[in-house]
């Protein structure tokens, strides 16, 4: 395993960072430009921006935020939400994003994954998966930022996406998201076990122990944090220290 990456996930609505629970509802937390710059200075490894209403409006509107962040935070930036075409990807990369996260458009047209990964490289093609347990206890992939059911089983969908060239998976548990009760470890483990590409665990972090479990039990390669950072429940420094103390290797600052 490589060094575990600590990632800040900022969900955006218009000019603001918002935070919901189970991808629903939201509180305005602050301005993305300030927050991402502050996380960068505090030593976060990567930034993920998700445009939370993009697929509703049919477009991703984060260009200004991306441009600003690219001028102030010299770490990888992934942008998702409403990314629907190769042209969308080109525009986001040109604005300063390094990777794009695609969910809804890929579920509707899986070939988009192949097109993006062939044109720009699979390292920039992050498959975003919103997983929710259904009545039978299996995980279903949701789309449209958790608003729609796709009917696709998460593991089977991910397998297909990897064969089409996805380079990384941003795996969000809708059940755990915003609860601060820990990640869906079974989900993360099932996916990590199945794929040879990196898996970013997202959704549910409340404590450093949750993060440690996501790595040691879930076998995630990276962890995306939102609530704990945005509401300042934990500092990035604290997280690094605690994680290092149990022998998990992270970037040294």
């Amino acid at each position, binding site marked *: *395993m*490589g*060094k*575990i*990456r600590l990632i800040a996930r900022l969900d955006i609505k218009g000019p603001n960072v918002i935070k919901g629970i189970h991808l629903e509802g939201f509180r305005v937390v602050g301005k993305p430009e300030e927050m991402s710059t502050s996380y*960068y200075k505090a030593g976060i*490894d990567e930034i993920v921006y998700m445009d939370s209403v993009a697929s509703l409006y049919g477009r991703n509107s984060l260009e200004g935020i991306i*441009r600003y962040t*690219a*001028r102030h935070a*010299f*770490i*990888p930036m992934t942008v998702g939400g409403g990314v629907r075409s190769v042209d969308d990807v080109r525009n986001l*990369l*040109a*604005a*300063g*994003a*390094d990777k794009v996260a695609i969910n809804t458009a890929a579920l509707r047209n899986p070939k988009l994954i192949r097109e993006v990964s*062939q*044109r*720009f*490289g*699979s*390292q*920039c093609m992050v498959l975003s998966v919103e997983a929710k347990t259904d009545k039978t206890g299996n995980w279903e992939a949701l789309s449209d930022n958790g608003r729609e059911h796709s009917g696709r089983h998460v593991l089977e969908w991910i397998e297909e996406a990897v064969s089409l060239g996805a*380079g*990384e998976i941003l795996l969000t548990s809708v059940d755990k998201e915003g609860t601060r009760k820990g990640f869906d470890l079974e989900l993360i483990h099932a996916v990590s076990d199945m794929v*040879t*590409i*990196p*898996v970013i665990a997202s959704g549910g972090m409340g404590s450093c122990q949750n993060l440690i479990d996501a790595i040691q039990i879930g076998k995630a*390669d*990276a962890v995306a944090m939102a609530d704990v950072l945005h509401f300042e429940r934990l500092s990035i420094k604290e997280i690094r220290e605690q994680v290092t103390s149990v022998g998990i290797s*992270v*970037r*040294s*600052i």
Partner: protein
Amino acid sequence: MKPQVTIVDYGMGNLFSICNALDHCGAKITLSSDSLVIAKAEHLILPGVGAFKDGMAELSSRSLIGPIKQHALTGRPFLGICLGMQMMLEQSSEFGVHEGLGLIKGSVVPIPPTGANGDPHKIPHIGWNSLLPAAGGNTWATPLLEDIPIGTDTYFVHSFMAKPENSKRKLALCYYNGIEICGAIGSANLLGCQFHPEKSGEKGLQILTNFLRM
């Protein structure tokens, strides 16, 4: 006077990022796909993200292979980044065998899918990894890494790796589950880094500043 740097614009690579980083370092930046501008550049950077064959095809279609080789002959500072570094080698086996710029002898090969102990690991190699002097010891063999602490983590994202024929061309290494990966290669002013200095935080910016001072 601001250090001048020309970046090869050939349709691949995250140009906005590298420009931002160099701007932050105080450089005067020229983005160019003009043969003459590139051949005569003071400092030249060849960025790149994506597949080797596409990169070489894009350089070729813009008639830039010749000018880049010309620049390399002048001895003025040259830096290949990520795919840009890989293209400095003679060939790559990514999606078939493809010819590179041949500025450094050797080839580009896949990162093995398993670590040194035989356990599978994730490909691409994505994330931060520690740079170590290729020749061992605790000094760098290149001014590119001056004042960068040994073991500094920089950001890698790649599935293929450079294998220079001459081990003296390896300047910095990192290890991915025991597999040796070239982090930086070259000699004198002809340099390449596999990691992205423009995405490696403040230390990455320092590396770019070192390049601008060469």
